[in-house]
């Protein structure tokens, strides 16, 4: 397999094959790059077909600029999937604002709740945390320790197993105390088989809180299951945004692209480490560059 798209384009440009043939080969390599970045296989084929059509229909510029042109079209199609080439707006459009974090076990919800609280606190908002995970041992302790670290209050009820009630009372308490951004951490769940009732619980929390935003927390390493999982979450409680965690590892994060396709939600942040400050606003160009395995997308897009 080719290491990256750069090689694919180089191969294409130096090749003596016809344009049609070269496009086909380029598409094949693109598919490989996307699949090994864990983009949903079906999504890869529909994306690459679109790209192929464009490459065949639109007129390529002089062969010198062809490489850039290829990348630009790939970038266009990928970025249109997640709402275009712009950084997301992460400042809430109203106050108070309630954010509910959901996701599969271990994806990084609790850590991210702390990070978000810290991010908004630094921006000058009055922030609070609510711990509504009643299953994981010491889930509330974890949130409390993070809250202590950044001096943000945490609501939880040790020993109570009514997640819906806890979430509701926590949010109400902080609303009455004029907190501006309230972040609700929930238990990890996937919702298959035995866990159908956990998905129901999530829906009940959602119905009780009517949060302004449901954020799906996704692990950068998630594979092909991302699409289906995200659809399930979206059905139970409309997902508005996505945060990709653990981007400091080697995983490419293509599963998040599948989640975007499944939910129509936008990616807002990425987590880049375990520490509380290791949260960055999502940058589409950098993300696509990572998915494609090439670093210089930025300069190419700028040039076009």
């Amino acid at each position, binding site marked *: 397999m080719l290491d990256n798209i750069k090689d694919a384009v180089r191969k294409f440009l130096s090749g003596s094959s016809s344009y049609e043939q070269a496009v086909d080969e380029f598409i094949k390599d693109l598919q490989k790059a996307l699949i090994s970045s864990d983009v949903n296989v079906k999504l890869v084929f529909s994306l690459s077909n679109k790209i192929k059509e464009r490459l065949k229909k639109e007129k390529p510029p002089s062969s010198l600029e062809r490489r850039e042109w290829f990348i630009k079209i790939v970038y266009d199609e990928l970025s249109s999937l997640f709402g275009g080439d712009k950084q997301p707006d992460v400042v809430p459009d109203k106050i108070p604002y309630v954010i509910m974090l959901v996701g599969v076990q271990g994806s990084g919800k609790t850590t991210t709740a702390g990070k978000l609280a810290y991010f908004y606190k630094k921006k000058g908002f009055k922030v609070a945390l609510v711990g509504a995970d009643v299953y994981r041992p010491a889930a509330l302790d974890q949130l409390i320790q993070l809250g202590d670290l950044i001096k943000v209050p945490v609501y939880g009820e040790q020993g109570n197993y009514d997640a819906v009630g806890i979430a509701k009372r926590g949010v109400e308490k902080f609303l009455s105390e004029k907190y501006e951004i309230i972040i609700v951490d929930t238990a990890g769940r996937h919702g298959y088989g035995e866990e159908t009732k956990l998905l129901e619980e999530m829906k009940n929390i959602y119905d009780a809180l009517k949060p302004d935003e449901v954020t799906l927390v996704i692990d950068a390493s998630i594979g092909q299951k991302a699409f289906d999982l995200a659809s399930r979450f979206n059905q139970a409680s409309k997902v508005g945004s996505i945060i990709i965690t653990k981007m400091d590892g080697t*995983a490419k994060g293509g599963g998040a692209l599948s989640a975007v396709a499944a939910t129509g939600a936008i990616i807002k942040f990425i987590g880049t480490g375990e520490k509380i400050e290791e949260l960055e606003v999502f940058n589409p160009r950098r993300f696509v560059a990572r998915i494609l395995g090439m670093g210089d997308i930025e300069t190419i897009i700028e040039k076009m």
Partner: protein
Amino acid sequence: LNIFNKLRYKEIKENDISDIIEELRMELLESDVSLEVTDKILEDLKTNLIGNKVSRSEDLEQLIKKSLKKSLNEILQYNKIDSNLVDNIKKSPKPFIIVFFGVNGVGKTTTIAKFVYLLKKNGLNVIIAAADTFRAAAQEQLAVHAKKLEVPLVKGKYGGDPASVAYDAIQSAKSRGIDVVLIDTAGRMNTDKDLTEELKRIIRIAKPNFRILVLDSLAGNDALEQARYFEDAVGYDAVILTKVDADAKGGIVLSLAYELKKPVIYLGIGQDYENLISFDPSWFLDRLFS
């Protein structure tokens, strides 16, 4: 006779099988078998098939699937372990020391709790070393499990040296005649040099009898990267695959067998203590061809 042969048999050409191979490629990839392993396996399959003579009446698709299943089954034998770990522990000098590691959030701590449950059921007594002194409430999380499972726990101070927690637990096991020491470690990314050094140190000091890499069955291509990284950095005896109940196909099992020849010993199939089952290669095949 030759003429009859020609009529009744035909030679398999690349063209005859390419559609079915592409179909199989989709299935393997959608099961999270890594791209490179998928390519290699299908290349092997092609080489084996092309040029073979098949009877004209034979269903080519069935033949190819059968052939793939057979070769996958052979590959998956690498996932098998020679002897049962629990039996192994029973036969070994005490204390038997097991260390668990892996990237963040895969299920190390929960798997340790399940292990305690399993070992206790087998009449072994256990002590846990909470050598994750980094993540918020990592200590408290294990303490809840230890209390529920009624086993001793050696705790560490946040920010403290994890290797010394492991050491203390081993000393305690020795003086109290405890059979098994389970060492929980902090999650660490396969890009983190410092934390890799820390893990090496824990292993140097604990001298474990058995090392377990914990992998998340929901992970895609990166799972193989993780497996390779930890193999190079510290090495391990077996893998435990978690969150299998999340309906993931678990393609990493095949990638592991093909690329690293590593056994998978248990699967995590839920969050309860009894949700740990022995791994059997046919599990993956059944899932893939279901």
